[in-house]
């Protein structure tokens, strides 16, 4: 199935969870409302015609233009991108969850997405990585710790407004 057909099927079954889509992109994607993510993912994995049994990658992308000279076309936001594929039916799908950069616009409060680690085990480490580097809290994750940075690291390095620390345990930073 190609993405338009999958999108049609998703709309028929869980129409309320689909927030938007872009079928003209190089990798066509479907936007899912954060709250509906587990339901949509479970449907994608279990529906016999879809059977998305492999989650390849979860990436966090921060959209914030930090250069005052450039004007950005987008409102500041954060995207969590899921790349799925089915080894059974040989089709692929890209899911996106679009989030505010901070929960309730309070700086320091991480935005939240429900975990999919109970649907695909790949998500376990990948969600920890996105939490660590991009600063997204995955609700219901069994063990949401930092994975690449040390446990006492401050900040989320792949945020565009991240400031490199001046020192870390006596090691000079900037």
């Amino acid at each position, binding site marked *: 199935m190609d993405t338009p057909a999958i999108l049609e099927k998703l709309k028929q079954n869980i129409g309320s969870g689909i927030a938007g889509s872009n079928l003209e992109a*190089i990798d066509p994607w479907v936007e899912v409302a954060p709250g509906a993510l587990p339901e949509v993912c479970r449907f994608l994995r279990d529906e016999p015609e879809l059977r998305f*049994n*492999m989650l*390849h990658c979860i990436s966090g992308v921060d959209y914030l233009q930090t250069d005052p000279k450039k004007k950005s076309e987008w409102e500041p936001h954060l995207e969590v*991108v899921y*790349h799925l594929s089915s*080894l059974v039916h040989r089709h692929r799908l890209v899911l996106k969850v679009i989030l505010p950069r901070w929960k309730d616009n309070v700086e320091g409060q991480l935005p939240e997405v429900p975990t999919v680690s109970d649907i695909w*085990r790949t998500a376990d480490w990948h969600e920890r990585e996105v939490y660590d580097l991009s600063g997204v809290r995955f609700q219901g994750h069994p063990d949401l710790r930092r994975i690449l940075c040390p446990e006492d690291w401050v900040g989320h390095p792949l945020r565009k407004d991240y400031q490199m620390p001046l020192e870390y345990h006596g090691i000079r930073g900037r």
Partner: protein
Amino acid sequence: MVLERVDPELAEFDVHTDELLVNMGPQHPSTHGVLRLVLRTDGEVVKEVIPHIGYLHRCAEKIGENLAARQWIPYTDRMDYLAGMNMNLGWALTVEKLLGLEVPERARHLRVLIAELNRIASHLVAAGTYGLDLGSFTPFVHCFREREKILDLFERVCGARLTYSYITIGGVMADLPRGWLDECEAFLVSFEPVIDDLHALLTSNAILIHRTAGIGVLSPEMAVSYGCTGPVLRASGVNWDLRRDGEPWCTRTYVGYKFEVIAETDGRYPQDAPYPPVPSAVVLGDCWHRFYVRMLEVVQSVKLARQAMDYYRKSPPGVGEPLRLVQKLPKGEAYLETEAPKGQMGFMVVSDGTTVPWRARARSSSFCNLSVVSELCRGCLIADVPAIVGSLDIVLGEIDR
């Protein structure tokens, strides 16, 4: 030869001792890099394994969003430093997908040739160090001698032995030097008997079979759920190889090439030569199968390299223009996975229309392959942990990025 595996839980006669936390690594010879495992043990039986990674984190993705797309190529080398060419290829194809860029025929065949040679080199390290993990030193020396010859060939092509930055966005950096194809053919001819030697030394070695048969059995469902790819996935009997099954941007590199995907189907492996049969003691998806799949894949890579040399000879000159650093990338995003020796290596590029990617993401195959380790090690003996970790063939540079 009688092989009987006793469940460690039963072998310990159900005697429970105090639980002990044993720390392995980050400096441990059999963890293949700076991997730290914390084992919760009851006597000799491992109850739980908690992997700690990140010791080699070099902020590759952060660096990627501060450099022009082509300037990130040298950083991809340093991810899987045992297969730098395949890493270059992954990023180059991803940016080409974003640009909609075709490479010349000659560059395409050079990419296949070089990438397959690097796959041989990577699998040789995997096989050699696996022997080392299990206590046999000789095969390691044979493997590294052969790998050395491949590195010599690479040195003649691009000047580097480990971090090549040879495959680039838009083609490859240079055409082959004069006489290189003959040297390559000479290497392949001398290498083929070594495969038989390695099979004699390792594959049918009674100790190796004892140490690996039935250890760390990974079911196909679990492999798929954990996102395990490459030889680890195929050793569980899943017939899946991106060189054949990938999306068009990945498979177009291999259009016209004939090779077998090495995975056990209907109880047998596709074989080009009478290699040692599968011993009766092994179970599909165990450490032995993961080792065996790599050994058979090497033969396919030799076959592919030969075909690539033929195609190369027939192709018109011209290996492509490397993407200029001032060239702006089109707005949009592209994600592509390619079949690297250790599994599916994915890259994502997000562009806002400038020369520098807005986001450069690397999906590491070893990262996913390692994540299954705590599942595989549950209930095994401490001595089996290096056997399991070694069979996954991880490279920490790629996991930590």
